[in-house]
């Protein structure tokens, strides 16, 4: 192997690693706040990517309709819970956020899809649609189970993943799609060629990580999210609703997922089920970070990306095997370092 190939593989690995880092951070965030291991994180990636690609090619994405349907479901849950108190203001807020908003977005999507909108509009619509799906998903599938054990939440998570993947097949078909580059063009530095798209990936990843860091460190809602992750009862006693924290976590996770999808769909062809594997690689990074450490997760994600790039060069058939095998020594080390624990009690 010469230096050029090595640099090329490194660059490729870092680009993928940046995406895994974002997904890993979202997984850690959601787990810390809600104790949900978010398997459907990968579906947020696919939905974001394919909604974007569909819109860009002038097709109507089914996800916009799904958002409205899930919104109606979420609203029904709200009304059912509030049936005995029936506060006018709460009902109005629920109808606005769960039905009126997705209905407006659906109308906009139908309007724009017919006329091949510009890239910025495609991105904005895709992000909003997937963000709404994430939010309503929490309301429908996880908020009612919030008090149950991690195992129950994990099973629900697997169920949601399978359902969303099936719907993905229905909406986007079995064919793969590619989207237009967010930033076209390229330049060369020495023997390395940087495409506008890979620079976009770096830029957005860094901006997002800095943004998250500021959000958690400086804003009241960010601190409330951290507080919920550290001590749920303490947070509730301070008046912080765990449902609010859960909603923010899911909103962030779905936006991060969709954004990752939009960033990779111009580089790789994505299928309705590609997100799962991409999400799992973020999961490997999150596990290395012990599902608690954000910096460790980000570093591990870059490592996963680089290992993947090199193994696809040397042994492309075993690429996935090598990446997922990384988990075994990490888990072994962690199990040696941590004291044995009984079945979780909560």
């Amino acid at each position: 192997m010469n230096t050029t190939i090595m640099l090329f593989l490194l660059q490729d690995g870092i680009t993928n690693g940046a995406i895994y880092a974002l997904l890993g951070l979202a997984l850690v965030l959601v787990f810390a706040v809600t104790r949900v291991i978010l398997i459907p994180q990968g579906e947020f990636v696919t939905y974001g990517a394919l909604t974007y690609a569909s819109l860009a090619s002038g097709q109507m994405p089914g996800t916009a309709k799904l958002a409205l349907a899930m919104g109606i479901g979420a609203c029904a849950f709200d009304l059912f819970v509030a049936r005995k108190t029936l506060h006018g203001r709460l009902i109005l807020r629920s109808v606005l956020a769960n039905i009126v908003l997705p209905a407006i977005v659906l109308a906009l999507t139908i309007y724009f899809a017919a006329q091949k909108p510009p890239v910025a509009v495609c991105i904005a619509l895709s992000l909003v649609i997937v963000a709404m799906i994430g939010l309503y998903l929490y309301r429908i599938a996880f908020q009612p189970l919030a008090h149950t054990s991690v195992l129950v939440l994990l099973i629900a998570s697997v169920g949601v993943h399978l359902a969303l993947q099936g719907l993905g097949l229905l909406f986007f078909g079995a064919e793969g799609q590619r989207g237009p580059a967010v930033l076209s063009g390229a330049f060369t530095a020495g023997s390395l060629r940087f495409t506008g798209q890979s620079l976009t990936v770096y830029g957005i990843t860094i901006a997002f990580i800095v943004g998250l860091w500021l959000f958690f460190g400086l804003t009241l809602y960010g601190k409330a999210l951290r507080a919920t992750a550290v001590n749920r009862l303490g947070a509730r006693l301070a008046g912080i609703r765990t449902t609010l924290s859960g909603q923010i976590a899911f909103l962030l996770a779905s936006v991060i997922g969709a954004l990752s999808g939009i960033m990779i769909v111009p580089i790789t062809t994505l299928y309705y089920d590609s997100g799962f594997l991409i999400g799992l690689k973020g999961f490997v990074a999150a596990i290395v970070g012990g599902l608690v450490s954000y910096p460790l997760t980000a570093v591990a994600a870059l490592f996963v990306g680089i290992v993947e790039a090199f193994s696809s060069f040397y042994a492309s058939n075993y690429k996935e095997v090598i990446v997922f095998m990384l988990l075994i020594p990490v888990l072994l080390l962690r199990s040696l370092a941590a004291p044995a624990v009984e079945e979780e009690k909560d």
Partner: protein
Amino acid sequence: MSALLSVTDAHVAYGKVEAVRSVGLEVGENEIVTIVGANGAGKTTLLSAIMGILPLKGRVAFAGQDLARLDIEDRVAMGLGLVPEHRELFVTMNVEDNLELGAFRIERSRAKASIEQVYTLFPRLKERRKQLAGTLSGGEQQMLAMGRALMGAPKLLMLDEPSLGLAPIIVADIFRIITELRASGVSVLLVEQNAQAALKIADHAYVMELGEFVLSGKASDIAANERVAASYLGFQHEGASAL
């Protein structure tokens, strides 16, 4: 005068085991009320149920409103605060962040004023405001837990064993602050195993045994009661052997 908090015929059960049976209690405005009793009498369970952490059968009214359908966060917003026995601090966050989050439901401008009030009440917290809550001493953590609850501007603060495991000098400080709270218009419902100290500062007292109130009245009368003195001494003995 109607009571700020009134609990009528409350039952709290863990599965089939009733930990609190048919309990009634009232806390008026500007009043310190204490519940004394041995370990396992059901005091902590009762406070948790009033706060909405555990389900309660019976009626709990706060400031004239039935709390049955309200969850913990709504009760906090109404002005009911609890400092639990285990304090439940955000240990990986600093003192100031802990306090700021205590005022999550309060307007930002008022929260700024409250934080200064808390610092006046607990000057130690101001010195340690950038320190992580988990690295504070036991006494400082108790102060922080009380400070965080006060940030929510409660009308009634429920304190669960605030002196547990603290050095005598800090305990005296905590009890002095509890009386200051009453003077500033905050009512206090105090659960304490240090019955002597609690009865000294309280206006009213309830004695709890095996999930039931066996005695209630003015704190000074309760303190003078022979049976209380006897069981209190008995408890002291148990407590000592438990250590």
